[in-house]
């Protein structure tokens, strides 16, 4: 009876989760849908608490309370600019939970205190769970460190890196096979966990900041697969379902992100962008003309423009300038201009990051346009205002076959009548590639911190 109730609660939860994810296809229904999903979670937890194996609730209560105390500030207080590292951290937590459950099941089974029977399929599932989980724990921690800039966000490479990683992976898999064949080989089991943890670090260390959207999405997928493997090991269907949903979502996002950079998975993971590529065009830039513009002149252009497209990039997030952007846009609109926002799929450090930042600043979401929707409009645009974006607006991706980013879909900012670029200095973008957009005759550069520059623009447009 109890068992049936538990299973029933899982069915309810699965339905609510899928409906919740489905609601995310519509911004106006999304919030309600996700609240339903949260109720689904509550149902599943209550359904589990009546599980016949649970005899002691003290540790559970303590864990739930402590988790809620840690989770609340992570949900309510983390600023939207820090979302990528926040997601990376929670991936690490999620994977850690999977690993710990796996280890505890293994330990119990070995010491004959019931639980899972370690036959081949179950041991294989347990092995995959801790292998993927442990790799995700450390991989996500490194990603967190890079995004938080505790660790250098430039790719760190050493010769023979891919070979070393490949060997490590091979050894980890060999240990997995050994422990599946004979589950009593505890040193193989724990050795595998340690190797996977090391591998997680080594895999993410060589990946640079701008490639983080792909990595975070991929780790999301691993985390899901680890959860699904937990489900297989425990024979728990809701874990399998959620793991599959999570895995599919992460996988899909990482494909979308790779496509948006015109790079294959393997290229992102093993290519160490910027590290290995000979930066042929770098250095030539010093001699090229750059037209700097004052905030006053830029403000005049914006004030009298009838069509403006704003192109935000990571620089806007770093400067936390989204509120100033919206203020400027409102001023232009008040003067009769039309303002749209062009969002490149890999702008920022995680999928969709710019959209959240702008939504936070009260920019209505129907002004935010995807790359494909807006690219045709640049030729009719009076001013394209680029804020802290670089590689995603680099025309070399379209024109220069020798460029490392050739073929990457970009926003056709260079086709606008005039372009104003807000940038801190003339440093090359993340990929270390010269951007000819900055030297084009129609482009003016407004140097300085994005937030300060935008504030100046706002007061100048007001005065204009």
């Amino acid at each position, binding site marked *: 009876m109890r068992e049936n109730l538990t299973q029933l609660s899982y069915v309810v939860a699965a339905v609510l989760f*899928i409906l919740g994810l489905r609601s995310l296809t519509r*911004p106006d229904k999304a919030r309600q849908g996700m609240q339903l999903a949260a109720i689904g979670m509550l149902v599943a937890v209550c359904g589990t608490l009546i599980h016949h194996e649970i005899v*002691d609730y003290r540790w559970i209560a303590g*864990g739930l309370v402590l988790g809620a105390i840690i989770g609340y500030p992570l949900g309510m207080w983390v600023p939207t600019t820090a979302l990528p590292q926040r997601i990376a951290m*929670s991936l690490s937590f999620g994977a850690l939970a999977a690993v710990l459950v796996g280890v505890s099941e293994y330990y119990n089974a070995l010491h004959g205190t019931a*639980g899972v029977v370690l036959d081949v399929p179950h041991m294989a599932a347990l092995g995959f769970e801790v292998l993927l989980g442990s790799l995700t724990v450390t991989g996500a921690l490194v990603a967190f460190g890079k995004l938080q800039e505790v660790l250098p966000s430039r790719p760190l490479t050493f010769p023979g890196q891919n070979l070393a990683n490949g060997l490590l992976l091979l050894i980890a898999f060999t240990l997995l096979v050994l422990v599946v064949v004979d589950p009593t080989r505890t040193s193989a089991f724990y050795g595998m966990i340690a190797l996977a943890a090391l591998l997680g670090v080594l895999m993410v260390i060589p990946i640079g900041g701008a490639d983080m959207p792909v990595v975070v999405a991929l780790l999301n997928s691993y985390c899901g697969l680890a959860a699904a493997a937990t489900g297989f090991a425990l024979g728990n269907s809701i*874990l399998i379902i959620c793991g599959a949903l999570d895995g599919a*979502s992460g996988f899909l996002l990482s494909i979308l992100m790779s496509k948006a950079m015109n790079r294959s998975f393997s290229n992102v993971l093993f290519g160490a962008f910027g590290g290995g590529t000979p930066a042929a065009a770098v250095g030539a830039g010093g001699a090229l003309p750059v037209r700097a513009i004052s905030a006053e002149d830029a403000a005049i252009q914006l004030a009298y423009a009838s069509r403006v497209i704003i192109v935000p990039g990571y620089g806007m997030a770093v400067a936390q300038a989204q509120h100033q952007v919206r203020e400027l846009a409102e001023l232009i609109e008040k003067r009769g201009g039309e303002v749209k926002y062009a969002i490149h799929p890999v702008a920022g450090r995680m999928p969709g990051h710019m*959209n959240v930042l702008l939504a*936070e600043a009260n920019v209505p979401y129907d002004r935010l346009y995807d790359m494909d929707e807006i690219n045709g409009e640049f030729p009719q645009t009076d001013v394209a205002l680029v804020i802290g974006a670089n590689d995603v607006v680099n025309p070399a991706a379209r024109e220069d076959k020798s460029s490392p980013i050739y073929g990457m879909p970009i926003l056709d900012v260079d086709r606008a009548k005039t372009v104003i670029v807000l940038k801190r200095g003339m440093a090359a973008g993340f990929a270390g590639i010269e951007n000819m957009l900055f030297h084009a005759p129609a482009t003016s550069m407004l140097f300085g911190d994005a937030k300060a520059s935008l504030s100046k623009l706002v007061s100048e447009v007001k005065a204009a």
Partner: protein
Amino acid sequence: MLILELYIFVLAGFVGYMVITKVPPLLHTPLMSATNAISGISLVGSLVAAGSQRSTVATILGFVAVVCATTNVVGGFLITDRMLKMFKRDDPKAKLPAEPK
């Protein structure tokens, strides 16, 4: 039993793929935090590990797992809600076409 579980996995993966391909890039960040919150379901495994008193090791590992998973569930759903609350239309009263692009 294993075959049945494989069915569940494959079918759920399909459902996930079908649903998630329709999520517009606009909401990709909330999607990530939502799947993150949902994957906090590993809480149900952790609860059993922490509460079944099979061994001290398992209980302690289970306890830490409960803390981690609960953090994700609570933090994940809260931050998703916080984000989704921010997305507003130009004119909130206008009933505009529902279909996502």
